[in-house]
């Protein structure tokens, strides 16, 4: 698959403060979540990607170009910044139309494209597209901001915290829109500090903290690389002691604890352990009513990566 964004030892300093430190990453087509706590360097990374900044050191290529150098290239991406307190006097339609025209659309085409995009972000139906942005809720502001990033049908869509402040309905609609963009073949880079939100949209992540790249890949891939913390699996069964006695003999199992509702085991080889549980349950006839992995999610992975 073709790399859309490639960085090599990318660093960005603000005076004496380092915002991004030696980041080497390749982003391919599809949806990618850029995750990290506030101040991790996510916005800096995105601003470098869209050419609003030059790297202090390192190399960056986006869609085959060096972002800050080529003005015409800017038509190929859409950027939705985190901030949204601008153009309060404009209507949503005027706002999106203005940015379509700045992308080079002729007046009539810009109007049509703006109306179509506002419809796509589900803002047209509420008639709010014709009201001033100052009257919009936070969710509507996010949508109109996303609409301006999409109006010119860019190949790459860069969204900085698009879900911040949005109500649950708007969050759902934005998430659905992001999935739709991915299905349509756009490359979407979406940043967030709320991990589970992005997990609903994609399984591919880049995790950064304090300007450093922590990990990249799917949750499973990243989790598998964290050897230091054994993988926990919780089982519900009517005979926890019986199942535990069989499981401790398995080489993939590190420890077994009996709890009120069943048992919790730890393993360094999750796939092998899941297979063993199924096999032992079948052989012993002890039913497994429920099996969950409480730390096989982004929050846990991120916690392990940042706290050691």
């Amino acid at each position: 698959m073709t790399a859309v964004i490639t960085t090599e030892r990318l660093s960005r300093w603000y005076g004496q403060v380092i915002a991004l430190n030696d980041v080497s990453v390749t982003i391919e087509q599809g949806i990618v979540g850029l995750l990290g706590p506030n101040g991790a360097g996510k916005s800096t990374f995105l601003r470098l990607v869209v050419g609003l900044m030059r790297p202090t050191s390192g190399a960056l290529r986006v869609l085959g170009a060096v972002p800050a150098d080529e003005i015409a290239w800017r038509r190929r991406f859409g950027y939705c910044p985190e901030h949204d307190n601008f153009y309060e006097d404009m209507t949503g339609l005027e706002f999106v139309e203005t940015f379509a025209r700045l992308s080079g659309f002729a007046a009539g085409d810009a109007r049509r494209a703006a109306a179509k995009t506002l419809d796509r972000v589900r803002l047209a139906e509420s008639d709010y597209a014709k009201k001033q942005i100052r009257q919009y809720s936070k969710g509507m502001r996010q949508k109109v901001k996303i609409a301006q990033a999409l109006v010119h049908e860019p190949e790459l869509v860069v969204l900085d915290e698009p879900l911040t402040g949005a109500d649950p309905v708007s969050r759902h609609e934005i998430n659905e829109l992001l999935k739709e963009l991915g299905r349509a073949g756009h490359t979407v880079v979406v940043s967030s500090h709320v991990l589970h939100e992005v997990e609903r949209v994609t399984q591919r992540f880049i995790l950064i903290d304090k300007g450093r790249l922590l990990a990249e890949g799917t949750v499973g891939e990243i989790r598998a690389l964290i050897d230091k913390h054994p993988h926990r699996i919780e089982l519900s069964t009517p005979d926890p002691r019986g199942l535990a006695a069989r499981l401790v003999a398995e080489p993939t199992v590190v420890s077994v604890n009996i709890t009120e509702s069943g048992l919790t085991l730890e393993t360094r080889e999750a796939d092998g352990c899941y297979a063993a549980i199924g096999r032992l349950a079948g052989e012993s006839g002890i039913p497994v009513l429920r099996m969950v992995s409480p730390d096989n999610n982004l929050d846990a992975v991120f916690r392990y990566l940042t706290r050691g």
Partner: protein
Amino acid sequence: MSIYVRRFSRYEGKLEPPRGRFRVILLAELRRIFADKWWRRFLFGAAMPAVMMAGWLYLMTTFQEATGAELDFPFFSVLFGWQFSWLGIMQAWFGASMITGDMQTKALSLYFTRPIDATQYLLGKLGATMALALTITWIPSLLVAVVQYSVADHLTFGAFAENVWSITACSMGAAFTTSALILLLSSTGLSARYVGITWLGAFVFLEAIRGILYESTGRSEALDVLSLARLLSGSVEYYFLGASHKLGSVITLWGVGALLTLILRIRLSGFEKARS
């Protein structure tokens, strides 16, 4: 692993040339300002001197025999004196927010992720600010010139055309230089209020400095370069009162405007690439 096939289609209509995209910013700014009720009120106030002068012209020509009033009164220089005062206030009030608004709301990042460069952005903002300035200098003066031509029997078309030229040149010089200066101040990132206050304060301060130096250095007219007010009034004297020795003021006015625009261009280029 997913397979991603591009199903969206890029815009295939005709793209407008990049060099004309400043018009989008210009029109968006004008639409924003003209939608402001305070601008409309301001415009009403700024039109008053021209309306009064047109009325005075009409009355004087209608009742000339009864009053014996002279039409040779240099009313364009008086009118521009008034309009330049309105221009100063206009720039402090409306021009001050032109760039600082984009900086404070971080809207600059939206502009500079579009295929426009700092020059297009500058032309859009400068064009909008100049258009506002011309609305209160060029248009009212032109209306007075038309009224004058229609009521004053002795005024030839040649004299009218000369007036129109003088009005245009005088208005353009003032609009260009004051717009470049307020935009440069606006690009400092201060709030619009502080930019406006700085602008008005700079007028008073530079006028005072010029006055002190003027008295202490043998009344040199070269000191006019320190005072935008003096350059503007020198420009009026040159165009409307035939003061040819004020040509220096006209050249300096345009030169200062060009220099400020160049500095602003360099400054905006820095924002575009965020090299700092």
